[in-house]
């Protein structure tokens, strides 16, 4: 697969206190990074519902980046650990569904780590670029009319 022209679409979740501020800092410091990540602000990484990730992936995103305060530095004391727990389970479930777990990434960035935010973002975009498009949105096209049933049940050809 050649993906030279493939521009991944990535949804990023940030927490209000650290990672969103890191993104702000990257901005105020005019750091440059890849434009492929579109951010959503939540109060805390603990707000991260796995549903959001699934919705993004099934809706056309090629990757999801979850960011929050460093362990031990959560503004809500310890909620980022809860995000971590969900993230680790979610990755396992995604793997079971044949989705490369690398498509969902968890990044800790403090409000002071604009540079980290920028470099992690660019790195992630490159990782996703390497993985290629996920294409879930297109496959899950719901209009049943263009669905062709399998006409030949012989696996010999299909498996070839």
């Amino acid at each position, binding site marked *: 697969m050649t993906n030279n022209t493939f521009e991944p679409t990535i949804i990023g979740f940030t927490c209000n206190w650290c990672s969103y501020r890191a993104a702000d800092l990257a901005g105020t410091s005019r750091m440059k990074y890849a*434009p492929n990540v579109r951010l959503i602000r939540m109060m805390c990484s603990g707000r991260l519902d796995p549903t959001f990730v699934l919705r*993004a992936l099934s809706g056309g995103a090629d990757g999801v980046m979850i960011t929050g305060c460093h362990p031990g530095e959560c503004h809500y004391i310890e909620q980022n650990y809860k995000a971590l727990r969900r993230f680790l389970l979610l990755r396992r479930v995604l793997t079971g569904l044949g989705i490369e777990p690398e498509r969902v990434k968890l990044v800790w960035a403090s409000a002071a780590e604009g540079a980290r935010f920028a470099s992690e973002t660019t790195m992630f975009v490159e990782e996703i670029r390497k993985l290629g498009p996920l294409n879930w949105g297109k496959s899950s096209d719901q209009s049943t009319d263009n669905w062709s049933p399998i006409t030949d049940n012989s696996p010999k050809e299909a498996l070839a």
Partner: protein
Amino acid sequence: MSEKIGVYVCHCGTNIAGTVDVKGVAEWAAEHLKHRGVVIGREYKFMCSSLGQELVEKDIKELGLTRVIVAACSPHLHEKTFRTACKNAGLNPYLCEMVSIREQVSWVHTDKVAATEKSKAAISGGVERVIHNEPLEPIQVPIHADTLVVGGGIAGIQAALEIADAGYHVCLVEREPSIGGHMAQFDKTFPTLDCAACILTPKMVEIGSHPNITLLTWSEVEKVDGYVGNFKATIRKKASYVNTDTCTGCGICWEKCPKKVVDDVYEAGLGIRKAIYRPFAQAVPKYPVMDVENCTYFKNGKCKACQLFCPTEPNSINFEQKDEILEIQAGNIILATGYDLFDAKRIPQYGYGKLPNVFTSLEFERMCNAAGPTEGRVVLRDMKTAPKSVVIVHCVGSRDENYNKYCSSICCMQSLKFAHLVMERTGAEVYNCYIDIRTPSKDYEEFYKRVLEEGGHFIRGKVAEVTDSARLPEEEGKLIVQVEDTLIGKQRRIPVDMVILSAGIEPRHDAKEVGKLFGIACGASGWYTEKHPKLDPVATMTEGIYIAGCVQGPKDIPASVAQGAAAAARVLGKIQQGVIALEPIKASINETQCSGCRICNGLCPFNAIAFIEDDKVSSINPALCQGCGTCVAACPAGAISGTGFSDQQIIAQIDGLLLKNLEEPVAA
């Protein structure tokens, strides 16, 4: 009802317009998001200017906008501005959302096309989200006028006095038998070398006698319930076995007590006290406490000398006394629990605990104190010989990846003070071994200069080790300090009689647990996290809980006092308001849907979630909830919802960001 949405795209001069096709974006929104309710898409040079704000206000009034999107800088900068503008025009402020296309687009991207596309996606996401925003009203909570101050060091003392003097009641809880904290252990304080007792004692006495202050020493907070304006603290007042109603503090009991105990707290292990004791002469309150761990009677059932000799009528010693549990109400809480000294034993190469004449800073402070174990004489561990030469080691446990990474900020000045005191009291040669001398405050550099002039030696180099293994005849029987003098590039082995370790300061060993009790967090280094490091240094993330003094980070007495006063001012402001408006971003539980599975119960760090046994459902106290949303994300039954960051809002924003709303109209 279908919404009328206004989209405003800011140029920010050329800040945004330089990279994003602002006009194009505004037009695109008006056209392509029309079916989503966008009725107007405008661009403007400076949206935050008064003219920009008027634009929004006018449209709200004239076009009847029901939702507003401002695509400009970060919401952290101007969200308040535009929400206020909406409010002025009669629109609920929470129906306005900002979309960051400056910090997150124009400033970080160079490709104009990509930046413009990203801006469109961001606006599309914002529009979808704002459709689901609900009008919210701040929650009003009345403020109880009493304040709880925890920790009676100089910071807590200052805070308590400020509030009490302003006419409000304060309850001051101190763990030790007396207030005073670390400052009470010192003899002289830098940079002016005031006598610590002279400036501290009057304040302590004032605390003891202030009509507006309830002083609870030998006490600890065990539990905190409630929320800003309305805290309820459970306090354990430990049994002191002394009836303070009758005790006169005459001192006969501890004079007669046969049991001597090494005083690790106040005397830093250098002196002794009795099993019944008052830590120091100026202690407030003046009553002794009995240390049952060491009391002969409690151990062997025999003695009672204190009771026998107690002269009061009725006798003040009461072996039957029990711990008391008190409950107090408070509107605000100030935590001023201070610091612990870094344990110098953790750096074995400095020999503390093994080589007798290596001392810690606090031991040295006690030695200098006229009321201390040596009555102010600076002597070796034998308690008589004066040293002829002394090395003071800086940065012990500080600025070190192996221990604490931060600078303890007080040890440079304190080491200079030590150098001065050693020279003044013994005439010994003094060497300060340092990495950098940091004296960034008024009159501090002058103090450094003074010590230089007095003849103190300064060696720029971190001490590698202290040993008693002599190599040369002149090293016999001495402590040898091995250090590179980095300024002259020489290896030095300095044989001296005494070494003082300027141990750094650390968060209290129990800071984490205590923080948890009050619902506040520690940063990476263990100090409590302030709301904003520059602009809100005494408030915390938990409304109504303030911090002052060394709990917030290493600092000296002037800074601790300033913070104590600042925290008091914040509290007084709150009390004056009478009520407080809380951000309406909260979680709540739909009781019908809640199954009582209790999965959410352990998740809230602010203890906002309670399980109601009778109904077998959980419920959230809105005043305690800080709106993090963790429980919302966790409830498997989907019974918890959150305002401001609801599932619908976020899901809609995801779809919007992915531009799903353009192709297929999302069902309203």
